């Protein structure tokens, strides 16, 4: 069974925001709600890195753990989705998420936020697949049509990869070996410092 994952290759991302635009357009995401965003580190400095981030569809999802009404569920593909009909807009999922994925359409006094919205891996929601209700609430369901998320499809440099985790890892590994040059072995500098 496929386990869906995202991977953004920080060496390839050029901060074109094509993924952001594609997602926003395809799902008609309202003002103020940002399902996907590109973060640039050391902006303007040579060697700046950009990464596209949205919901990572975690295995032990913190959002699902803290929800007071237990509105989250994980599909067989590992995609984390939620039911807007149950959501009370408390914001706990946003406090818990490491990546800041949950978004809210309103920001008013007395904790009024509206229903939580987030990246669905283009897999819709609990409503019937490809129905009008599903499209209105959660955006297009591409996965039900056998397609992959639009952000990754639209990525201009193929920095953003989405799909079965094993296949994504294989592609990324091939890139690493082909790139050569600067080593990317994490921790070796600390662990093996002083080795000849």
């Amino acid at each position, binding site marked *: 069974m496929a386990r869906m994952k995202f991977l953004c290759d920080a060496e390839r991302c050029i*901060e074109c*925001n094509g993924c*952001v635009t594609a997602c926003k357009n395809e799902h008609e995401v309202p003002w*103020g709600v*940002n399902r996907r*965003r*590109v*973060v*640039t*580190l*050391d*902006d303007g400095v040579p060697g700046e*890195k950009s*990464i596209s*981030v949205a919901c990572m569809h975690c295995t032990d999802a*913190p959002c699902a*753990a*803290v*929800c*007071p*009404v*237990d*509105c989250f569920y994980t599909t067989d593909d590992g995609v984390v989705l939620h039911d807007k*009909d*149950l*959501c*009370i*807009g*408390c*914001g*706990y999922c*946003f*406090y*818990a*998420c*490491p*990546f*800041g994925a949950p*978004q809210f359409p309103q*920001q*008013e*006094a*007395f*904790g*009024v*936020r509206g229903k939580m919205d987030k990246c669905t891996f283009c897999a819709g929601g609990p409503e019937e697949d490809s129905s009008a209700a599903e499209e209105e609430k959660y955006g297009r369901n591409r996965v039900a049509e056998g397609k992959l998320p639009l952000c990754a499809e639209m990525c201009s440099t193929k920095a953003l990869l989405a799909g079965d985790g094993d296949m994504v890892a294989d592609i990324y590994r091939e890139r690493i070996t082909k790139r050569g040059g*600067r*080593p*990317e*072995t*994490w*921790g*070796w*500098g*600390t662990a*093996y*410092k*002083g080795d000849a």
Partner: protein
Amino acid sequence: MRVKEIKGKRRKRLYIALAAITAGLLVAMALPLTGYVLHSVGLVQVAQAQEADDEDEAVNQRAEYWRAVRGGVEGYSAVSGQETGVLIQNGGQKWRETRDGPLSFFGASLIIAVLVAIAAKHLVRGRDTLDERTGRMMARWPAFERALHWYVAILFIILAITGLSLMFGRAMLIPLMGKEGFAAWAQLAKPVHDYLALPFAAGLILTLLIYARKMLLQSHDFAWLRSMGGLIGDRHPPSGFFNAGEKIFFWLLFFCGIAIMVSGFYLLFPNLGWERDAMQLSHIVHSASGVFLIAVSLGHIYLGSFGVEGALEGMVTGSVDEGFAKEHHVLWYEEVKGIAAVEDNTPAPDATTATPT
């Protein structure tokens, strides 16, 4: 020529020369060792160390970079919104583990423990009945204070029920009501909790201001505490208008109440742009203080209703029986009767007829 055949001074000079050469060889071998000794003790750094650092740079320049990102360093994002420049925040996982772990466990345990203690006391010792009921009443709670008490009490109970629903509802109410049923309840509970918060805060602040002076602990309060209000030892320790137990409840309301109101302010107005770590901390403080106050309030509610005969009628009608006053607040009783006796210029009617307690 053998050494043995060299005689006298020449022999002596030979020995000196040999000793000198041997000593010189030994020193020549030993001298470099001082460098080794000093280096191993750490007094001498060699260029070696720096080279290793440069090596480290060459091995993985990105390690430190990504470590900083993992630590929550902020970048730039064309998408504007709350904290959109932050790739990863760590507070969320700590908050989740605290909320789902110690906060839930100890919170639930505290409430259950208090309920068990109350039940045990009531079943074992029974109700605290009045020693005598004279039928004569004394004014204790003016109308305004009664209204304020019930206003704060009712709002507190509603806030407690809605708050506990949000905290424990998933574990306790979903099995009873189903997901849709509980979600419908929670969709009502959350706005009720949020909108009643300010009216409650106003009532609580007024309460705290009105009674603070009378709630300062005095010397007789410590004797009352030692006998736990008569639960152990002396059955009727003297107390004033408020006994030490009531005073302690007040101060818990005071400090925990302030914590709830301040943290609640953050939670109630996320539109003012608080960052996630402020919300996480506010939530923990708010929930912990709330659960704690709920636990102590259960004790207050028990004592004010079933637990002590004659207490509830005071807060409902405004007056208490003189027997209740003499038994539970004798210093207040004497103060009131003393003044009354002076004003009337006649001895208090029960001075000659009252039965000694």
